[in-house]
């Protein structure tokens, strides 16, 4: 049953991907800009949802891997004349490697302490970039060559989002998902079943971090210039967190719905930045109170609720 659902999901993702590939033929720059942002956010949200929803690791370190990916990609592009796909692939590897490097320390911390640990890691990297002049210091780095045109960048973002979606499907629809949820629900009981919790968490963390770094690399190339306050900004972590909470933590469609919702809201309120923050906050409060499983979770429960209301 699982395998069939997984197959259908892969087919659906493939169709969506193929259709979107031709989007630049039909839409102008504005549409592509928005679509690009949705894809980057979708990638980050998928990877965060994998960590938090499936493995139970709530991270505030998204910015850490976004920033790392950006800096690694720029370094390779500017100093080694690496082709863009290679630079992005190395950025992803670097993200995964950093995750593997810090996990022995981070996984000693459980629950909220892990969350705080990831936050500290992001700050540590940001301050390093600010204070080391080889990395451009506080002013950052400018991409030496012109970034590729927008339709090409859109295709890069699309491929990255495809990788993230397929990875998420692999983790959610195969036997891996059972192991991940076991570790999330009761690490000790899982160990008693032969599951090695450290390795499972490490795998999820490395994969999510590599995806984050990949998205960061693509985003940085589009910007053409990076500086530590932006690329390592807490805003990344908070945006991703709110997207997944709005969409639905641990739900397959949660990241997509959340990313679309947050980007659309941002566009609708683009002229009122203060109102934007306040309204996002209000939406989060309402959702956490009344729909703790997000928009997707609420929609899934709707038939049941309707019946209850109809009876009442």
């Amino acid at each position, binding site marked *: 049953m699982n*395998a069939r659902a997984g197959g259908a999901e892969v087919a659906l993702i493939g169709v969506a991907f193929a259709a979107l590939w031709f989007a630049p033929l039909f839409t102008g720059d504005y549409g592509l800009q928005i679509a690009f942002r949705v894809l980057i956010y979708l990638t980050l949200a998928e990877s965060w949802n994998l960590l938090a929803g499936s493995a139970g690791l709530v991270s505030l370190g998204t910015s850490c891997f976004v920033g790392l990916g950006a800096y690694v990609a720029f370094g390779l592009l500017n100093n080694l004349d690496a082709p863009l796909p290679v630079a992005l692939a190395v950025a992803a590897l670097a993200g995964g490697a950093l995750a593997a490097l810090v996990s022995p320390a981070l996984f000693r911390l459980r629950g909220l302490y892990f969350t705080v640990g990831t936050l500290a890691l992001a700050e540590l990297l940001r301050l390093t970039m600010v204070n080391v002049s080889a990395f451009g210091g506080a002013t950052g780095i400018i991409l030496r060559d012109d970034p590729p045109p927008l339709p090409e960048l859109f295709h890069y973002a699309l491929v990255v989002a495809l990788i993230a979606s397929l990875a998420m499907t692999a983790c959610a629809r195969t*036997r891996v998902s*059972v*192991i991940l*949820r*076991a570790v999330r*629900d*009761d690490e*000790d*009981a*899982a*160990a*008693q*079943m*032969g*599951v*090695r*919790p450290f390795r499972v968490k490490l795998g999820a963390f490395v994969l999510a971090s590599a995806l984050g770094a990949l998205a960061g690399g693509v985003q940085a190339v589009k910007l053409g210039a990076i500086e530590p306050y932006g690329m390592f900004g807490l805003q990344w972590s908070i945006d991703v967190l709110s997207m997944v909470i709005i969409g639905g933590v641990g739900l397959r469609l949660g990241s997509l719905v959340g990313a679309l919702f947050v980007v659309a809201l941002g566009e609708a309120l683009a002229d009122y930045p203060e109102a934007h923050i306040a309204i996002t906050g209000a939406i989060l409060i309402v959702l956490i109170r009344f729909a703790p499983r997000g928009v997707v979770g609420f929609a899934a429960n709707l038939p049941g609720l309707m019946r209850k209301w109809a009876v009442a």
Partner: protein
Amino acid sequence: MSAPLLEVTGLVKRYGGLVAIDHVDLRLQPGTITGVIGPNGAGKSTLIGLIGGAVAPSEGVIRLDGRDVSRLPASERARAGIGRTYQIPRPFLDMTVEENLEVAQYSIQPFARAAPARAERTALLARAGLSDVARLPARALPLLRRKRLEVARALALKPHIVLLDEVGAGLVDSEITELIALIQTIADPGTAIVIVEHVLRVVRECCARSLVLNFGKKLIEGPTAEIFANDEVAAVYLGTGGARAATGNPNLAAFEEAAVSVSPRGVALSPLIAPPSTADAGAPLLELRGICSGYGQARVLKGVDLRVRQGQAIAILGANGAGKTTLARTISGAIVPTAGSFRFAGENVSGRPAHRIAQLGIAHCMEGRRIFPTLSVQENLLIAARGAGADVTRERLSAVHDLFPILAERKNQPGTSMSGGQQQMLAIGRALMARPRLVIFDEISLGLAPVVMDSLYDALAELKTAGVTLIVIEQDVDRALALADYAFVLEHGVFGLSGEPTEIAADPRLRHIYIGTAD
């Protein structure tokens, strides 16, 4: 004799000063079922944890098939073939029953082919009687079926060693019959099973050999029938006077003796004793009628009637799992009864939250002491007297210090840094600080050396003389009966026996309830 499948030598587990497992040796042959019995706190679950890898040993060696596994984490021991269940089932609640088994299968064989793995799961679920609920979330299962899921999940590992930790607790007789049938299907020539159990019927019917743990030490080991006929074993459960000398841990006793001394008789306890209510003195202080109570699916108390008069000392006896602690928790309001009437000092208090019931003057000295570890000894005491004026608090404090001088000496130490006996004194002192009208003492002698128990019971006797109304819940029959005016014996959630302490002590049914006899 063939080589043992599992060999445990000199196993020790210390928690700070407390020795939970003290130099235990154990050899398990393939194809055997071994029972482990012993009083609460004897270290049975710790032993399971040590073998399963959830608890790291302080000393000693555990060999599985000749290989030293003592330092391996739980996950590696599971992969090496040790499967265990938890005393309180810990299924993955949001997964289906079948997925719970998949965890074990796919963790040891990530690339197992799907079809044979599914066939194996189906067979396991059928054996455990869970076929009809395979697709339900584990959360939907009642207690008995969760316990079966624990067993099925452990078996999905294809273990050579199966450790069953109190799979019979909380089950009624017919459920125990089913459980025994299930255990007997697990036994095969290549597997060794260990059953930790208070439900002695399970041990009697499944295990050829048994061992008795007491105070973390192996008291005796041998054929199960001999173990059950042994007077010393009866003494461990019933706590006869002879057993005190025989089973006491002399080192621990000597260690505690220096620290534990209760003040001489005649201390001024009056600040701790609530004045008797003036309104009709003949009415009972506490009156329970037809109380039913339990935890979710597990119904523990099935209609308990209890009347306690002002100044009485009541003993509540009964085997493990009979419902003694549930009764205590129901009276103190920690559990709301599902049926029956609960009156205190003439008022109907049924359904009131625990803090309201405490305000009425019921203090509960809880099983396991429940000392606040981050508070000092003094703060632990003061927290129970919140709301009283400074003078009153000082009076009560000095009365508690008179009763247990050690609490004055150690007043600035963290509460849990003291020895077990001292912590128990703190727990008793804390209960008294509220100046209660009724105090429930739940298993205050648990895990304590006999000499410490003696001094605690001396203190209880003083309280009784001073007029405090007491309910004493105890596994140690002799001590409780020596103190009480009247005794009740809980059996399967109802009072099976009640009477004057002398009648109860002489009643052959008491031994039957505790040890159970083949009838």
